[in-house]
């Protein structure tokens, strides 16, 4: 019985899990969320707190408070929401320790919202055209990374760029592509 339940949770999308939990679901739902995102929370905490003990404690705190928070919030995209919660908790701790004076993220970041459902041949062409509108550095990185499936390391040595630059070129290139595509009605209608 228990086993069967877990399988169902395992198959449910995040948002359904959240709804089930809000309707008085079991703690196994928190376990399932941990399985899906525990490592992302831990990694993100590590990135901000730079100390594995602090990161572990913070991850613990975040999951401890998760049940309460889930019940109090209307959550549209769970992953973005959890990212925001994680980042805010870390920034609050850092601010308390006087290490940063960063603004706390209030809004969900829109960059992750693009989800394509169906792609037609013509849209590939649009996408290809959009890539050519990117700045040289971003275009090269995107092409090497997505089309030639090169690793960061390879791109770094091929383009003689710092790994951080490569990563941000890919990230920014992706964001810009999305903006270009969003401005093209034909593409938008298919989203």
């Amino acid at each position, binding site marked *: 019985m228990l086993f069967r339940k877990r399988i169902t949770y395992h198959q449910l999308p995040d948002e359904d899990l959240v709804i089930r939990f809000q309707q008085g679901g079991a703690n196994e739902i928190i376990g399932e969320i941990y399985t899906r995102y525990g490592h992302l929370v831990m990694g993100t905490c590590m990135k901000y707190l730079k100390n594995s003990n602090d990161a572990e404690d913070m991850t613990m705190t975040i999951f401890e408070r998760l049940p309460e928070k889930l019940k109090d919030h209307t959550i549209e995209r769970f992953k973005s929401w959890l*990212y925001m919660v994680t980042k805010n908790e870390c920034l609050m701790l850092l601010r308390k320790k006087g290490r940063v004076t960063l603004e706390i993220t209030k809004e969900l970041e829109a960059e992750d919202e693009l989800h394509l459902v169906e792609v037609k041949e013509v849209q590939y062409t649009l996408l290809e055209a959009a890539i050519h509108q990117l700045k040289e550095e971003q275009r090269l990185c995107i092409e090497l990374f997505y089309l030639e499936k090169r690793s960061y390391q390879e791109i770094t040595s091929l383009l003689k760029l710092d790994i951080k630059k490569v990563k941000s070129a890919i990230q920014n290139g992706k964001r810009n592509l999305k903006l270009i595509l969003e401005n093209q009605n034909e593409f938008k209608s298919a989203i």
Partner: protein
Amino acid sequence: MNLSRLYSIFQSSGLERKDVETYGRSTDPLVRNEIEQKEMSDSFDADAMEGWEQLSYDPSVMSQLDKKYAPSTGPSLYKIIGGTALVGSAVIAILYFTVFQEPVKLLVAQKSTQKEVSSLKEEPVIVLEASDVALPAPIERMKHAPKAEQVPAKQISKEFQEIIQFRVETPNLPVKPLPSVDPENPTSPEIVRNHKEAKEIYLHSMKLVDYRKYRDKPQVKTKQLILTGTPANKEDEYSEEEDPVWKDVDVPYIEYIEKSVGIFEHGNYKKALSRFQTVMETYPDDVNANFYGGICLFNLGEYSKAIPHFENCLSGAFSNFDEEAQWMIAECYEKSGDTAKAKVIYRSIASGNGFYAGQAKDKLK
């Protein structure tokens, strides 16, 4: 240009836990690219991967967290291991017990300290019941009757024992003959209630009807406040604890009544009364709650309020408290100054051959 690859720009799925480890191990550019694409799928994944780089991509740092949050990996393996360990330790224990007496003590001592430590690590959960926090205002306002006027728990339990002894010594109580019925002139039929002695249980040396035999899963509806969360010593400024909320819960009847009788025994009549009232909200005819609730009221000097509860004992389904309740009703009338009514009852008790007959006669002198 491979067009479908282009599409992966917006299509890659997020990082899984195993990807973190794989990335740390693998030098294959294709494998790395696949994981890096996942990393790029979302800023959450990207941030996390940066963090994991500082942790050398070693997910074992999460072992403590896993213990707390990860769902156990299927029951089978753990059960087998756990079962084997259990059987094994039992065998070892028996061997120790039979062969070496001394080491057993050591083993037991070690085990008990281990248990203590692990229980310390557990999150403290404090359960408060409604009667622990605040009593209903009418009860709060009551004042205890002078000590000499009270019926302490000790006396009640002593009388219970004496009644048992009394019944053993006078086994065959004469049964009153039924009044003859004139078939020519039948009187209105009298309702004979089903009033019998129920199974009893003694808790805190107090007599109780064991309702577990007569009710299906008896439970008392009450409110509990469950205090959980960060212990004060681990709390910091931004730990935002929410106020605990009262929750309606069903507590097993026997558990609830046992605690209530314990409180009664300690002489905390107000708190005990509020608990007996809670029982009566679920079971208005409960003889235990009516009887001990009545005694609480008696000891609080609320004689007129106590009488209906003792009367409920007499009219209820079980006769276990009949003698005591009848006596208490008479006492209540006497204490409240209604000597005429008290005398009527004392007389009726004295004319019978119950345990209180002698005392009733003394009262009438």
